[in-house]
């Protein structure tokens, strides 16, 4: 008898400890020490656990698509750094193909614009695009709202998060934003080195870092590894002639420019470039060294020598790649808070 009691007490205590642990583990949004101030407007969408959890549920909710088959998480897979691993361009509903490579969802709280062409300037307006895009989720927001309103769980979850069971565009978008801005990747070896948390670069990584700073760091600016600018890196138009930033500004000088992507989690996020044409990081380096096309809007930083591109020996390229691998953040791709529950 006594033994049984003890087990029950133990279980109860365990239960309490567990729920406490869950509460404690939700620290809200925390800016990593080596990061600048975030750009997201937290003042109009203050992070709470209930909103974040609702956003997570919505992120993994296939009802956001026309036939309830495709969720955000379907093309933004956590183990692939929230990209569509192995796909040059993503396939959405009915296996229809998109025209661009699914970008990683990470550190969006520092994003100034979204998508490869920067056409969306507020994260709260971002999810409308994949939801309504015929080649992604092909659904209307009106239908999404009606499916959520008629679901047994969502009215209660919206009530918990927002104080009433009303389900509208603003609330869906703000909850999704909460989940997305919480996707902070800042626990790579690089971060540990920068924050003096004990890790040290190997000699090769150190040399790679120095080379990186000289040859890559002005566009792939630390610590986010992008300066958020739009540039033509001389890969040349692909078969679908995607004109990139030009489609948003209609400015000739923006033709074939795309946003500089972050290099964090680079090993998990292949393939590379806006159309996913490079399968390996080695191929990316080879492009910059030997295959940059002298296009009309080629970035001036790639036109400094006699031939366009960056001059690097193969040993230097290897060292840069060794450094880039220190940007992989295993904690981020395995953090249970970000997984489908």
């Amino acid at each position: 008898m006594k033994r049984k009691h003890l087990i029950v007490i133990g279980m109860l205590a365990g239960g309490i400890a567990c729920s406490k642990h869950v509460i404690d583990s939700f620290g809200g949004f925390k800016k990593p020490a080596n990061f600048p101030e975030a750009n997201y407007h937290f003042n109009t969408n203050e992070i709470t656990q209930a909103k974040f959890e609702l956003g997570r549920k919505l992120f993994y909710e296939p009802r956001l698509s026309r036939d309830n088959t495709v969720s955000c998480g379907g093309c933004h897979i956590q183990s692939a750094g929230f990209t569509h691993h192995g796909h040059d361009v993503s396939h959405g509903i009915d296996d229809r193909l998109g025209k661009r490579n699914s970008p990683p969802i990470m550190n969006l709280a520092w994003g100034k614009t979204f998508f490869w062409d920067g056409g969306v300037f507020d994260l709260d307006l971002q999810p409308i695009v994949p939801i309504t895009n015929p080649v992604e989720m092909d659904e209307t927001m009106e239908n999404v709202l009606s499916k959520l309103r008629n679901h047994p769980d969502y009215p209660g979850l919206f009530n918990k998060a927002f104080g009433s069971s009303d389900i509208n565009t603003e609330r869906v978008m703000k909850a999704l934003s909460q989940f997305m801005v919480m996707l902070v990747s800042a626990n790579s070896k690089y971060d540990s080195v920068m924050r003096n948390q004990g890790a040290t670069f190997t000699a090769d990584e150190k040399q790679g870092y120095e080379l990186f700073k000289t040859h890559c760091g002005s566009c792939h600016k630390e610590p986010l590894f992008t300066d958020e600018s739009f540039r033509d890196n001389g890969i040349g138009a692909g078969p679908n002639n995607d004109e990139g930033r030009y489609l948003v500004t209609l400015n000739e000088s923006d033709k074939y420019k795309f946003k500089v992507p972050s290099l964090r989690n680079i090993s998990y996020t292949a393939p590379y470039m806006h159309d996913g044409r490079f399968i390996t990081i080695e191929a990316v380096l080879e492009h910059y060294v030997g295959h940059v096309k002298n296009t009309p809007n080629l970035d001036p930083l790639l036109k400094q020598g006699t031939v366009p591109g960056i001059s690097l020996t193969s040993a230097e390229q290897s060292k840069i790649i060794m450094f880039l691998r220190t940007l992989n953040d295993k904690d981020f791709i395995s953090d249970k808070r970000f997984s489908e529950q």
Partner: protein
Amino acid sequence: MFTIQTLLLLLALQSCKKDSNNTSFNEGTKATLSIEFDNIVGGQNLQLNTGSYTNASGETFSVSLLQYFISNISVKKADGTVYTVPQDSSYFLIKESDPTTRFAKVKVPEGEYTSLTFTLGVDSLRSTKDISERKGVLDPSGGMEDGMYWGWNSGYIFFKMEGISQQAPVDPTGQNKFRYHIGGFGGYSAPTINNIKSFTVDLNAGGVAKVRSGRESNVHLMADISKVFNGSTSVSIAANPTVMFSAYSVHIANNFSGMFRHDHTENQHL
């Protein structure tokens, strides 16, 4: 460089000026001013799908969808004082398919107004506001078919007209369709096309608006969509069957200038 910051500053200054004008009104006695948008094509009433019309390029066309945003309404008295309707109450989506939407109804202080100003489209400032300030017709969740919002390039479609013309090439759905989706608020972080158009209509000839409690003043405007084709640019459907976010859209937006005229005012007792 023209940035959103400069715009904000300008708008802030402008609204200060307007506020001082508003003080000459007794805000306590407001009544309804109705502005009716009666869509016509030249000398004919617009009939969706069934009506057949001809543009200046000699192309025949019918209209299957017509809708546009009207916003930022202000009214002026003969003595020059201006009342600007609070912005939150000043966004309307006029849809030809829904007759109830043809009236933009606002509350203005009692008085006689000799001129009316409004915007065709959605102002730049609202186009960049937090999603919490995009309710009602500004909800950015519209569908691909009749939606008035571009998701991929955040911004409202100000004016949307679609129809059939034998001069339009066959599209992938097998129809000879033309599609004009006109928007562009100037760009958020990088400047681009601005197709926001403001209109001022003098009401003296057609009848001033006498706004008083207990009656409804209805300013009946004609919106002549033939002008969209026939203006400073003669728009050919054959040459431009689809105009959306592109440099050519500026020519169509410039044609809007001839679109609205005041027909008459009904100062009816309720």
